[in-house]
Protein backbone atom coordinates (compact mmCIF):
# COMPACT_ATOMS: atom_id res chain seq x y z
CA UNK A 1 0.00 0.00 0.00
CA UNK A 2 1.47 3.30 -1.03
CA UNK A 3 1.91 6.19 1.36
CA UNK A 4 -0.64 8.26 -0.57
CA UNK A 5 -3.31 5.59 -0.11
CA UNK A 6 -2.59 5.44 3.63
CA UNK A 7 -2.99 9.19 3.96
CA UNK A 8 -6.18 9.11 1.95
CA UNK A 9 -7.59 6.34 4.12
CA UNK A 10 -6.85 8.37 7.25
CA UNK A 11 -8.52 11.38 5.63
CA UNK A 12 -11.55 9.26 4.73
CA UNK A 13 -11.79 7.99 8.31
CA UNK A 14 -11.86 11.63 9.44
CA UNK A 15 -14.59 12.34 6.87
CA UNK A 16 -16.70 9.41 8.04
CA UNK A 17 -16.20 10.33 11.69
CA UNK A 18 -17.28 13.87 10.89
CA UNK A 19 -20.36 12.77 8.96
CA UNK A 20 -21.31 10.26 11.64
CA UNK A 21 -20.90 12.86 14.36
CA UNK A 22 -22.86 15.42 12.39
CA UNK A 23 -25.87 13.14 12.26
CA UNK A 24 -25.56 12.00 15.87
CA UNK A 25 -24.62 15.12 17.83
CA UNK A 26 -27.49 16.90 19.53
CA UNK A 27 -25.81 20.28 20.04
CA UNK A 28 -24.80 22.84 17.44
CA UNK A 29 -21.30 23.25 18.87
CA UNK A 30 -20.81 19.50 18.63
CA UNK A 31 -21.84 19.66 15.00
CA UNK A 32 -19.33 22.44 14.41
CA UNK A 33 -16.55 20.25 15.82
CA UNK A 34 -17.54 17.46 13.42
CA UNK A 35 -17.45 19.86 10.48
CA UNK A 36 -13.98 21.00 11.51
CA UNK A 37 -12.90 17.36 11.58
CA UNK A 38 -14.05 16.96 7.98
CA UNK A 39 -12.38 20.16 6.80
CA UNK A 40 -9.07 19.21 8.39
CA UNK A 41 -9.32 15.76 6.91
CA UNK A 42 -9.69 17.44 3.53
CA UNK A 43 -6.60 19.55 4.27
CA UNK A 44 -4.63 16.40 5.10
CA UNK A 45 -5.78 14.77 1.89
CA UNK A 46 -4.78 17.82 -0.17
CA UNK A 47 -1.31 18.15 1.30
CA UNK A 48 -0.71 14.41 0.92
CA UNK A 49 -1.81 14.52 -2.71
CA UNK A 50 0.55 17.43 -3.36
CA UNK A 51 3.61 15.93 -1.61
CA UNK A 52 3.36 12.37 -2.84
CA UNK A 53 2.46 12.86 -6.51
CA UNK A 54 3.73 15.00 -9.37
CA UNK A 55 1.47 17.83 -8.35
CA UNK A 56 3.26 21.03 -7.38
CA UNK A 57 4.03 20.72 -3.66
CA UNK A 58 4.02 24.49 -3.12
CA UNK A 59 0.54 24.86 -4.54
CA UNK A 60 -0.74 22.02 -2.39
CA UNK A 61 0.71 23.46 0.81
CA UNK A 62 -0.68 26.85 -0.10
CA UNK A 63 -4.11 25.31 -0.67
CA UNK A 64 -4.00 23.56 2.69
CA UNK A 65 -3.04 26.77 4.46
CA UNK A 66 -6.04 28.44 2.86
CA UNK A 67 -8.27 25.56 3.96
CA UNK A 68 -7.01 25.87 7.55
CA UNK A 69 -7.43 29.64 7.58
CA UNK A 70 -10.90 29.56 6.11
CA UNK A 71 -11.94 26.74 8.45
CA UNK A 72 -10.95 28.95 11.37
CA UNK A 73 -12.92 31.85 9.91
CA UNK A 74 -15.88 29.57 9.40
CA UNK A 75 -15.70 28.38 13.01
CA UNK A 76 -15.94 31.95 14.32
CA UNK A 77 -18.87 32.62 12.03
CA UNK A 78 -20.69 29.44 13.11
CA UNK A 79 -20.09 30.28 16.79
CA UNK A 80 -21.45 33.80 16.23
CA UNK A 81 -24.59 32.39 14.63
CA UNK A 82 -24.91 29.81 17.41
CA UNK A 83 -24.91 32.71 19.89
CA UNK A 84 -27.74 34.33 17.91
CA UNK A 85 -29.65 31.04 17.90
CA UNK A 86 -29.10 30.57 21.62
CA UNK A 87 -30.41 34.09 22.33
CA UNK A 88 -33.52 33.72 20.22
CA UNK A 89 -34.39 30.12 21.12
CA UNK A 90 -32.87 29.96 24.60
CA UNK A 91 -31.19 26.70 23.59
CA UNK A 92 -28.54 25.37 21.22
CA UNK A 93 -29.89 21.83 20.95
CA UNK A 94 -30.90 20.71 17.48
CA UNK A 95 -34.16 19.20 18.76
CA UNK A 96 -35.38 22.63 19.95
CA UNK A 97 -34.63 24.44 16.71
CA UNK A 98 -37.47 23.42 14.43
CA UNK A 99 -39.70 26.34 13.49
CA UNK A 100 -39.25 26.17 9.72
CA UNK A 101 -41.83 23.71 8.50
CA UNK A 102 -45.19 23.93 6.96
Amino acid at each position, binding site marked *: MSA*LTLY*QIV*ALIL*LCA*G*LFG*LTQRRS*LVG*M*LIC*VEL*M*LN*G*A*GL*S*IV*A*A*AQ*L*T*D*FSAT*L*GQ*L*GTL*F*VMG*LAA*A*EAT*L*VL*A*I*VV*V*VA*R*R*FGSAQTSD*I*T*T*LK*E
Partner: protein
Amino acid sequence: MNFDITLVVPELYFLCLVLVLMIQSLGDREWKPVVEKWLPFGAGLGFFVAIVNYGHEGLMLWDVYRVDMMSQFFKIAIAFGFFVTVINAARQPTLAEGKRSDYYMMLGFSALGLMMLSSAVELITIYLALELASYSLYAVIPLRAKNKGAAEAGVKYILFGAVATALALYGLSYIMASQHTTYIAELMHKSWTFADQPMAVVGLCLFLGGMFFKLALFPFHFWCPDVYQGASNETAAFVATLPKMGAIVILARLAVFLKPGLEITTLLAVLGALSMTYGNLAALAQTDIKRLLGFSSVAHAGYIMVGLVSGTSEGLAAAAFYALAYLVMNLLVFWVVCRVAVDGRNLKLNDLNGLYKKAPVLAFSLAAGAFALVGLPPTMGFMGKFFLITSAWDHGYNWLVITLVLNSAIAIYYYLSLFRHAFTEDKTPDLTPAPDNSWFASAGAGLLAGAVLLAGMVPAPLFNLAVEAGRSLMP
Protein backbone atom coordinates in the same frame (compact mmCIF):
# COMPACT_ATOMS: atom_id res chain seq x y z
CA MET B 1 2.52 37.84 -12.83
CA ASN B 2 1.10 40.01 -15.65
CA PHE B 3 -1.32 42.19 -13.73
CA ASP B 4 -3.34 44.50 -15.93
CA ILE B 5 -5.43 46.90 -13.91
CA THR B 6 -7.81 47.78 -16.77
CA LEU B 7 -9.11 44.19 -16.85
CA VAL B 8 -10.38 44.15 -13.27
CA VAL B 9 -12.03 47.56 -13.08
CA PRO B 10 -15.46 46.16 -12.03
CA GLU B 11 -13.92 44.13 -9.21
CA LEU B 12 -11.84 47.09 -8.05
CA TYR B 13 -14.89 49.31 -8.14
CA PHE B 14 -16.87 46.86 -6.01
CA LEU B 15 -13.90 46.54 -3.65
CA CYS B 16 -13.90 50.33 -3.17
CA LEU B 17 -17.65 50.27 -2.64
CA VAL B 18 -17.28 47.60 0.04
CA LEU B 19 -14.44 49.49 1.71
CA VAL B 20 -16.53 52.66 1.90
CA LEU B 21 -19.36 50.61 3.41
CA MET B 22 -16.92 49.11 5.89
CA ILE B 23 -15.76 52.57 6.96
CA GLN B 24 -19.34 53.68 7.35
CA SER B 25 -20.22 50.59 9.38
CA LEU B 26 -17.28 51.22 11.71
CA GLY B 27 -18.08 54.88 12.14
CA ASP B 28 -20.68 56.83 14.01
CA ARG B 29 -24.29 55.71 13.40
CA GLU B 30 -25.27 59.35 12.88
CA TRP B 31 -23.11 59.72 9.80
CA LYS B 32 -24.74 61.38 6.83
CA PRO B 33 -25.69 60.54 4.16
CA VAL B 34 -27.33 57.35 5.42
CA VAL B 35 -26.36 54.27 3.47
CA GLU B 36 -29.70 53.85 1.64
CA LYS B 37 -29.38 57.36 0.22
CA TRP B 38 -26.12 56.89 -1.64
CA LEU B 39 -25.69 53.14 -2.15
CA PRO B 40 -28.27 52.73 -4.96
CA PHE B 41 -26.33 55.28 -6.98
CA GLY B 42 -23.07 53.54 -6.15
CA ALA B 43 -24.50 50.17 -7.18
CA GLY B 44 -25.99 51.68 -10.35
CA LEU B 45 -22.58 53.07 -11.27
CA GLY B 46 -21.16 49.58 -10.61
CA PHE B 47 -23.60 48.15 -13.16
CA PHE B 48 -22.49 50.82 -15.62
CA VAL B 49 -18.81 50.07 -14.96
CA ALA B 50 -19.42 46.36 -15.58
CA ILE B 51 -21.11 47.14 -18.92
CA VAL B 52 -18.31 49.47 -20.01
CA ASN B 53 -15.77 46.79 -19.21
CA TYR B 54 -17.46 44.25 -21.47
CA GLY B 55 -15.24 42.94 -24.26
CA HIS B 56 -11.94 42.89 -22.40
CA GLU B 57 -9.98 39.66 -22.52
CA GLY B 58 -6.87 38.40 -20.85
CA LEU B 59 -5.19 36.05 -18.41
CA MET B 60 -3.89 37.43 -15.15
CA LEU B 61 -2.12 36.57 -11.90
CA TRP B 62 -0.13 33.49 -12.96
CA ASP B 63 -3.00 32.32 -15.16
CA VAL B 64 -5.48 31.74 -12.34
CA TYR B 65 -7.71 34.66 -13.30
CA ARG B 66 -9.21 34.84 -16.74
CA VAL B 67 -11.22 37.75 -18.06
CA ASP B 68 -13.25 36.62 -21.07
CA MET B 69 -16.70 37.02 -22.57
CA MET B 70 -18.24 34.52 -20.16
CA SER B 71 -16.86 36.21 -17.07
CA GLN B 72 -17.83 39.69 -18.30
CA PHE B 73 -21.35 38.49 -19.17
CA PHE B 74 -21.84 37.18 -15.64
CA LYS B 75 -20.20 40.24 -14.07
CA ILE B 76 -22.82 42.40 -15.77
CA ALA B 77 -25.55 40.06 -14.51
CA ILE B 78 -24.15 40.16 -10.97
CA ALA B 79 -23.77 43.94 -10.97
CA PHE B 80 -27.34 44.28 -12.22
CA GLY B 81 -28.62 41.88 -9.57
CA PHE B 82 -26.73 43.74 -6.85
CA PHE B 83 -28.16 47.04 -8.06
CA VAL B 84 -31.74 45.73 -7.96
CA THR B 85 -31.40 43.96 -4.60
CA VAL B 86 -29.86 47.04 -3.00
CA ILE B 87 -32.79 49.22 -4.12
CA ASN B 88 -35.16 46.45 -3.09
CA ALA B 89 -33.63 46.26 0.39
CA ALA B 90 -33.65 50.02 0.91
CA ARG B 91 -36.98 49.97 2.77
CA GLN B 92 -36.39 46.78 4.68
CA PRO B 93 -38.61 46.86 7.77
CA THR B 94 -37.12 43.91 9.65
CA LEU B 95 -33.50 45.08 9.66
CA ALA B 96 -32.29 46.61 12.92
CA GLU B 97 -31.38 50.29 12.59
CA GLY B 98 -27.75 49.96 13.70
CA LYS B 99 -26.94 47.13 11.30
CA ARG B 100 -27.76 48.72 7.98
CA SER B 101 -24.28 49.53 6.69
CA ASP B 102 -23.00 46.14 7.87
CA TYR B 103 -25.82 44.45 6.00
CA TYR B 104 -24.95 46.19 2.73
CA MET B 105 -21.26 45.60 3.29
CA MET B 106 -21.92 41.86 3.51
CA LEU B 107 -24.04 41.93 0.36
CA GLY B 108 -21.28 43.87 -1.40
CA PHE B 109 -18.62 41.39 -0.30
CA SER B 110 -20.75 38.57 -1.59
CA ALA B 111 -21.21 40.28 -4.97
CA LEU B 112 -17.46 40.92 -5.14
CA GLY B 113 -16.76 37.25 -4.38
CA LEU B 114 -19.17 36.17 -7.09
CA MET B 115 -17.51 38.48 -9.61
CA MET B 116 -14.14 36.98 -8.77
CA LEU B 117 -15.70 33.53 -9.01
CA SER B 118 -16.84 34.22 -12.55
CA SER B 119 -13.25 34.90 -13.59
CA ALA B 120 -11.48 32.17 -11.59
CA VAL B 121 -10.05 29.38 -13.75
CA GLU B 122 -8.07 27.41 -11.18
CA LEU B 123 -9.70 25.13 -8.64
CA ILE B 124 -8.08 26.57 -5.48
CA THR B 125 -8.91 30.09 -6.66
CA ILE B 126 -12.48 28.97 -7.28
CA TYR B 127 -12.62 27.65 -3.73
CA LEU B 128 -11.34 30.95 -2.30
CA ALA B 129 -13.73 33.10 -4.34
CA LEU B 130 -16.64 30.81 -3.47
CA GLU B 131 -15.90 31.09 0.22
CA LEU B 132 -15.66 34.88 0.02
CA ALA B 133 -19.10 34.91 -1.60
CA SER B 134 -20.61 32.39 0.84
CA TYR B 135 -19.29 33.57 4.21
CA SER B 136 -20.76 37.03 3.82
CA LEU B 137 -24.12 35.46 2.94
CA TYR B 138 -24.05 33.18 5.98
CA ALA B 139 -23.70 36.26 8.16
CA VAL B 140 -26.58 38.09 6.46
CA ILE B 141 -29.26 35.40 6.86
CA PRO B 142 -29.89 35.81 10.62
CA LEU B 143 -30.17 39.62 10.31
CA ARG B 144 -33.95 39.65 10.68
CA ALA B 145 -34.73 41.30 13.96
CA LYS B 146 -35.84 38.90 16.71
CA ASN B 147 -37.02 36.29 14.24
CA LYS B 148 -36.45 32.68 15.31
CA GLY B 149 -36.74 31.25 11.82
CA ALA B 150 -33.95 33.50 10.52
CA ALA B 151 -31.52 32.23 13.15
CA GLU B 152 -32.48 28.64 12.39
CA ALA B 153 -32.06 29.21 8.67
CA GLY B 154 -28.67 30.83 9.25
CA VAL B 155 -27.27 27.98 11.29
CA LYS B 156 -28.63 25.35 8.89
CA TYR B 157 -27.20 27.17 5.88
CA ILE B 158 -23.73 27.55 7.32
CA LEU B 159 -23.45 24.00 8.68
CA PHE B 160 -24.69 22.34 5.49
CA GLY B 161 -22.55 24.76 3.50
CA ALA B 162 -19.47 23.76 5.47
CA VAL B 163 -20.18 20.07 4.85
CA ALA B 164 -20.60 20.71 1.11
CA THR B 165 -17.31 22.65 1.11
CA ALA B 166 -15.52 19.85 2.93
CA LEU B 167 -16.76 17.31 0.39
CA ALA B 168 -15.69 19.60 -2.47
CA LEU B 169 -12.22 19.84 -0.92
CA TYR B 170 -11.92 16.05 -0.73
CA GLY B 171 -12.84 16.05 -4.39
CA LEU B 172 -10.17 18.67 -5.06
CA SER B 173 -7.54 16.51 -3.37
CA TYR B 174 -8.47 13.52 -5.56
CA ILE B 175 -8.25 15.63 -8.70
CA MET B 176 -4.82 16.82 -7.55
CA ALA B 177 -3.65 13.29 -6.84
CA SER B 178 -4.71 11.82 -10.16
CA GLN B 179 -4.54 14.64 -12.74
CA HIS B 180 -1.60 16.56 -11.18
CA THR B 181 -2.98 19.98 -12.03
CA THR B 182 -5.74 22.32 -10.90
CA TYR B 183 -5.79 24.63 -13.90
CA ILE B 184 -8.98 24.23 -15.93
CA ALA B 185 -7.08 24.90 -19.15
CA GLU B 186 -4.86 21.85 -18.50
CA LEU B 187 -7.59 19.66 -17.00
CA MET B 188 -9.52 20.14 -20.24
CA HIS B 189 -7.06 17.92 -22.12
CA LYS B 190 -7.03 15.09 -19.57
CA SER B 191 -9.10 11.95 -19.76
CA TRP B 192 -12.28 11.98 -17.68
CA THR B 193 -13.59 8.46 -18.26
CA PHE B 194 -14.14 6.27 -15.23
CA ALA B 195 -12.11 3.46 -16.77
CA ASP B 196 -8.96 5.62 -17.14
CA GLN B 197 -9.17 7.86 -14.12
CA PRO B 198 -11.62 6.57 -11.52
CA MET B 199 -10.19 8.75 -8.75
CA ALA B 200 -10.36 11.92 -10.82
CA VAL B 201 -13.98 11.21 -11.78
CA VAL B 202 -14.97 10.70 -8.15
CA GLY B 203 -13.05 13.85 -7.27
CA LEU B 204 -14.76 15.93 -9.92
CA CYS B 205 -18.18 14.67 -8.79
CA LEU B 206 -17.43 15.72 -5.22
CA PHE B 207 -16.08 19.08 -6.37
CA LEU B 208 -19.17 19.67 -8.46
CA GLY B 209 -21.18 18.83 -5.32
CA GLY B 210 -19.93 22.04 -3.77
CA MET B 211 -21.30 23.98 -6.74
CA PHE B 212 -24.56 22.02 -6.69
CA PHE B 213 -25.02 23.12 -3.11
CA LYS B 214 -24.79 26.77 -4.14
CA LEU B 215 -27.14 26.12 -7.03
CA ALA B 216 -29.54 24.10 -4.82
CA LEU B 217 -29.56 21.12 -7.17
CA PHE B 218 -31.12 17.89 -5.89
CA PRO B 219 -29.79 16.21 -3.63
CA PHE B 220 -28.06 19.33 -2.28
CA HIS B 221 -31.24 21.37 -2.16
CA PHE B 222 -32.50 20.82 1.39
CA TRP B 223 -31.26 24.17 2.72
CA CYS B 224 -33.01 26.13 0.01
CA PRO B 225 -36.70 26.32 1.07
CA ASP B 226 -35.74 26.71 4.74
CA VAL B 227 -33.34 29.57 4.08
CA TYR B 228 -35.79 31.39 1.81
CA GLN B 229 -38.53 31.02 4.38
CA GLY B 230 -36.40 31.97 7.36
CA ALA B 231 -34.49 34.90 5.89
CA SER B 232 -36.21 38.24 5.45
CA ASN B 233 -37.87 38.81 2.07
CA GLU B 234 -35.17 41.21 0.92
CA THR B 235 -32.34 38.90 1.95
CA ALA B 236 -34.07 35.99 0.24
CA ALA B 237 -34.21 38.06 -2.94
CA PHE B 238 -30.41 38.20 -2.87
CA VAL B 239 -29.82 34.59 -1.81
CA ALA B 240 -32.22 33.28 -4.44
CA THR B 241 -30.58 35.03 -7.35
CA LEU B 242 -26.94 36.09 -7.20
CA PRO B 243 -25.17 33.03 -5.73
CA LYS B 244 -26.73 30.93 -8.50
CA MET B 245 -24.93 33.08 -11.05
CA GLY B 246 -21.57 32.20 -9.51
CA ALA B 247 -22.38 28.50 -9.40
CA ILE B 248 -23.59 28.45 -13.01
CA VAL B 249 -20.51 30.18 -14.38
CA ILE B 250 -18.23 27.65 -12.66
CA LEU B 251 -20.36 24.74 -13.85
CA ALA B 252 -20.20 26.15 -17.38
CA ARG B 253 -16.41 26.33 -17.16
CA LEU B 254 -16.16 22.78 -15.82
CA ALA B 255 -18.74 21.51 -18.33
CA VAL B 256 -16.09 21.94 -21.01
CA PHE B 257 -14.63 18.59 -19.82
CA LEU B 258 -17.96 16.85 -20.05
CA LYS B 259 -18.41 15.29 -23.43
CA PRO B 260 -21.77 13.58 -23.89
CA GLY B 261 -21.57 9.92 -22.90
CA LEU B 262 -19.10 10.31 -20.05
CA GLU B 263 -20.22 8.96 -16.68
CA ILE B 264 -20.14 12.42 -15.07
CA THR B 265 -22.24 13.92 -17.85
CA THR B 266 -24.87 11.24 -17.39
CA LEU B 267 -24.80 11.81 -13.65
CA LEU B 268 -25.34 15.53 -14.24
CA ALA B 269 -28.27 14.79 -16.53
CA VAL B 270 -29.85 12.39 -14.01
CA LEU B 271 -29.44 14.90 -11.19
CA GLY B 272 -30.93 17.59 -13.41
CA ALA B 273 -33.97 15.43 -14.17
CA LEU B 274 -34.45 14.46 -10.51
CA SER B 275 -34.01 18.07 -9.45
CA MET B 276 -36.68 19.46 -11.75
CA THR B 277 -39.15 16.69 -10.98
CA TYR B 278 -38.65 16.84 -7.24
CA GLY B 279 -38.64 20.64 -7.13
CA ASN B 280 -41.85 20.95 -9.09
CA LEU B 281 -43.70 18.21 -7.23
CA ALA B 282 -42.68 19.60 -3.85
CA ALA B 283 -43.66 23.12 -4.89
CA LEU B 284 -47.21 21.96 -5.63
CA ALA B 285 -47.87 21.44 -1.93
CA GLN B 286 -46.53 24.78 -0.67
CA THR B 287 -48.59 27.62 0.71
CA ASP B 288 -45.78 29.93 1.85
CA ILE B 289 -44.72 31.94 -1.21
CA LYS B 290 -41.03 32.03 -0.40
CA ARG B 291 -40.97 28.26 0.22
CA LEU B 292 -42.72 27.82 -3.11
CA LEU B 293 -40.09 29.97 -4.80
CA GLY B 294 -37.42 27.93 -3.03
CA PHE B 295 -38.66 24.69 -4.57
CA SER B 296 -39.09 26.48 -7.87
CA SER B 297 -35.42 27.42 -7.82
CA VAL B 298 -34.56 23.74 -7.21
CA ALA B 299 -36.50 22.97 -10.39
CA HIS B 300 -34.77 25.78 -12.29
CA ALA B 301 -31.37 24.43 -11.24
CA GLY B 302 -32.41 21.23 -13.00
CA TYR B 303 -33.34 23.13 -16.16
CA ILE B 304 -29.87 24.72 -16.28
CA MET B 305 -28.31 21.23 -16.36
CA VAL B 306 -29.93 20.67 -19.77
CA GLY B 307 -27.65 23.31 -21.23
CA LEU B 308 -24.53 21.92 -19.58
CA VAL B 309 -24.73 18.27 -20.66
CA SER B 310 -24.80 18.83 -24.42
CA GLY B 311 -21.07 19.61 -24.55
CA THR B 312 -21.45 22.34 -27.18
CA SER B 313 -20.89 26.06 -27.05
CA GLU B 314 -24.60 26.57 -27.89
CA GLY B 315 -25.51 24.60 -24.77
CA LEU B 316 -23.28 26.78 -22.61
CA ALA B 317 -24.74 29.88 -24.26
CA ALA B 318 -28.27 28.64 -23.53
CA ALA B 319 -27.34 27.96 -19.90
CA ALA B 320 -25.85 31.46 -19.56
CA PHE B 321 -28.93 33.03 -21.12
CA TYR B 322 -31.23 31.00 -18.91
CA ALA B 323 -29.20 32.07 -15.88
CA LEU B 324 -29.80 35.69 -16.83
CA ALA B 325 -33.52 35.00 -17.38
CA TYR B 326 -33.70 33.25 -14.00
CA LEU B 327 -32.05 36.27 -12.36
CA VAL B 328 -34.45 38.83 -13.83
CA MET B 329 -37.60 36.72 -13.30
CA ASN B 330 -36.81 36.03 -9.67
CA LEU B 331 -35.81 39.62 -8.96
CA LEU B 332 -39.20 40.62 -10.36
CA VAL B 333 -41.21 38.13 -8.28
CA PHE B 334 -39.26 38.92 -5.12
CA TRP B 335 -39.69 42.65 -5.76
CA VAL B 336 -43.46 42.16 -5.76
CA VAL B 337 -43.32 39.91 -2.68
CA CYS B 338 -41.25 42.50 -0.78
CA ARG B 339 -43.65 45.32 -1.76
CA VAL B 340 -46.76 43.35 -0.80
CA ALA B 341 -45.30 42.40 2.59
CA VAL B 342 -44.72 45.98 3.71
CA ASP B 343 -44.27 44.90 7.33
CA GLY B 344 -41.73 42.23 6.39
CA ARG B 345 -43.91 39.23 7.27
CA ASN B 346 -43.85 35.97 5.34
CA LEU B 347 -46.55 35.90 2.70
CA LYS B 348 -48.97 33.04 2.23
CA LEU B 349 -50.61 32.49 -1.14
CA ASN B 350 -53.90 33.76 0.31
CA ASP B 351 -52.27 37.09 1.19
CA LEU B 352 -52.13 37.83 -2.52
CA ASN B 353 -55.92 37.72 -2.85
CA GLY B 354 -57.36 40.86 -4.36
CA LEU B 355 -53.96 42.29 -5.24
CA TYR B 356 -55.23 43.48 -8.61
CA LYS B 357 -57.55 45.94 -6.88
CA LYS B 358 -55.16 47.11 -4.20
CA ALA B 359 -52.07 47.48 -6.40
CA PRO B 360 -52.75 46.85 -10.09
CA VAL B 361 -49.18 47.43 -11.28
CA LEU B 362 -47.80 44.94 -8.77
CA ALA B 363 -50.45 42.40 -9.75
CA PHE B 364 -49.68 42.79 -13.43
CA SER B 365 -45.94 42.50 -12.78
CA LEU B 366 -46.46 39.40 -10.67
CA ALA B 367 -48.43 37.90 -13.55
CA ALA B 368 -45.57 38.67 -15.94
CA GLY B 369 -43.13 37.08 -13.50
CA ALA B 370 -45.29 33.97 -13.05
CA PHE B 371 -45.74 33.55 -16.81
CA ALA B 372 -41.99 33.95 -17.30
CA LEU B 373 -41.21 31.33 -14.65
CA VAL B 374 -43.61 28.89 -16.33
CA GLY B 375 -41.98 29.65 -19.67
CA LEU B 376 -44.92 31.05 -21.59
CA PRO B 377 -44.33 33.41 -24.53
CA PRO B 378 -43.68 36.32 -24.91
CA THR B 379 -41.41 36.33 -21.88
CA MET B 380 -37.73 35.84 -21.23
CA GLY B 381 -38.41 32.52 -19.52
CA PHE B 382 -39.93 31.14 -22.71
CA MET B 383 -36.94 32.17 -24.83
CA GLY B 384 -34.56 30.74 -22.22
CA LYS B 385 -36.29 27.36 -22.27
CA PHE B 386 -36.52 27.45 -26.04
CA PHE B 387 -32.76 27.93 -26.36
CA LEU B 388 -32.09 25.20 -23.79
CA ILE B 389 -34.27 22.70 -25.62
CA THR B 390 -32.92 23.44 -29.09
CA SER B 391 -29.31 23.31 -27.90
CA ALA B 392 -29.71 19.98 -26.11
CA TRP B 393 -31.83 18.10 -28.65
CA ASP B 394 -29.89 15.40 -30.57
CA HIS B 395 -26.87 15.41 -28.30
CA GLY B 396 -27.66 12.13 -26.59
CA TYR B 397 -29.90 13.45 -23.84
CA ASN B 398 -33.27 13.68 -25.52
CA TRP B 399 -34.93 12.04 -22.51
CA LEU B 400 -33.74 14.95 -20.40
CA VAL B 401 -35.30 17.43 -22.83
CA ILE B 402 -38.58 15.52 -22.65
CA THR B 403 -38.42 15.57 -18.84
CA LEU B 404 -37.95 19.33 -19.00
CA VAL B 405 -41.03 19.77 -21.16
CA LEU B 406 -43.16 17.53 -18.94
CA ASN B 407 -41.97 19.40 -15.88
CA SER B 408 -42.88 22.74 -17.37
CA ALA B 409 -46.41 21.39 -17.61
CA ILE B 410 -46.45 20.44 -13.91
CA ALA B 411 -45.03 23.84 -13.01
CA ILE B 412 -47.90 25.68 -14.68
CA TYR B 413 -50.16 24.69 -11.79
CA TYR B 414 -48.34 26.40 -8.97
CA TYR B 415 -47.02 29.39 -10.87
CA LEU B 416 -50.45 30.17 -12.17
CA SER B 417 -51.87 29.82 -8.68
CA LEU B 418 -49.76 32.90 -7.85
CA PHE B 419 -51.55 34.57 -10.74
CA ARG B 420 -54.95 33.17 -9.73
CA HIS B 421 -54.65 34.43 -6.15
CA ALA B 422 -53.56 37.88 -7.28
CA PHE B 423 -56.56 38.21 -9.58
CA THR B 424 -59.34 36.79 -7.39
CA GLU B 425 -61.60 38.71 -5.02
CA ASP B 426 -60.50 39.11 -1.47
CA LYS B 427 -63.37 37.67 0.56
CA THR B 428 -61.84 37.78 4.01
CA PRO B 429 -61.84 41.10 5.86
CA ASP B 430 -58.53 42.91 5.70
CA LEU B 431 -56.42 42.54 8.79
CA THR B 432 -53.01 42.88 7.17
CA PRO B 433 -51.42 46.13 6.04
CA ALA B 434 -52.15 47.11 2.45
CA PRO B 435 -49.46 46.55 -0.19
CA ASP B 436 -47.08 49.37 -1.02
CA ASN B 437 -48.72 51.22 -3.89
CA SER B 438 -46.26 54.11 -4.14
CA TRP B 439 -44.60 55.17 -7.39
CA PHE B 440 -41.37 53.59 -6.11
CA ALA B 441 -42.94 50.13 -5.84
CA SER B 442 -44.82 50.41 -9.12
CA ALA B 443 -41.88 51.81 -11.08
CA GLY B 444 -39.52 49.06 -9.94
CA ALA B 445 -42.02 46.31 -10.65
CA GLY B 446 -43.00 47.85 -13.98
CA LEU B 447 -39.40 48.22 -15.15
CA LEU B 448 -38.49 44.64 -14.20
CA ALA B 449 -41.67 43.30 -15.82
CA GLY B 450 -40.86 45.37 -18.91
CA ALA B 451 -37.37 43.85 -18.99
CA VAL B 452 -38.78 40.32 -18.75
CA LEU B 453 -41.24 40.96 -21.58
CA LEU B 454 -38.86 42.93 -23.79
CA ALA B 455 -36.08 40.35 -23.51
CA GLY B 456 -38.68 37.73 -24.42
CA MET B 457 -39.82 39.58 -27.52
CA VAL B 458 -36.40 40.76 -28.70
CA PRO B 459 -33.98 38.18 -27.29
CA ALA B 460 -31.37 38.40 -30.06
CA PRO B 461 -29.04 41.09 -28.62
CA LEU B 462 -28.79 39.37 -25.24
CA PHE B 463 -28.58 35.91 -26.77
CA ASN B 464 -25.73 37.02 -29.02
CA LEU B 465 -23.81 38.08 -25.92
CA ALA B 466 -24.49 34.66 -24.42
CA VAL B 467 -23.31 32.95 -27.62
CA GLU B 468 -20.06 34.93 -27.53
CA ALA B 469 -19.69 33.89 -23.91
CA GLY B 470 -20.26 30.23 -24.75
CA ARG B 471 -17.73 30.32 -27.60
CA SER B 472 -15.06 31.89 -25.41
CA LEU B 473 -15.06 28.78 -23.21
CA MET B 474 -14.75 26.13 -25.91
CA PRO B 475 -11.20 25.31 -27.01
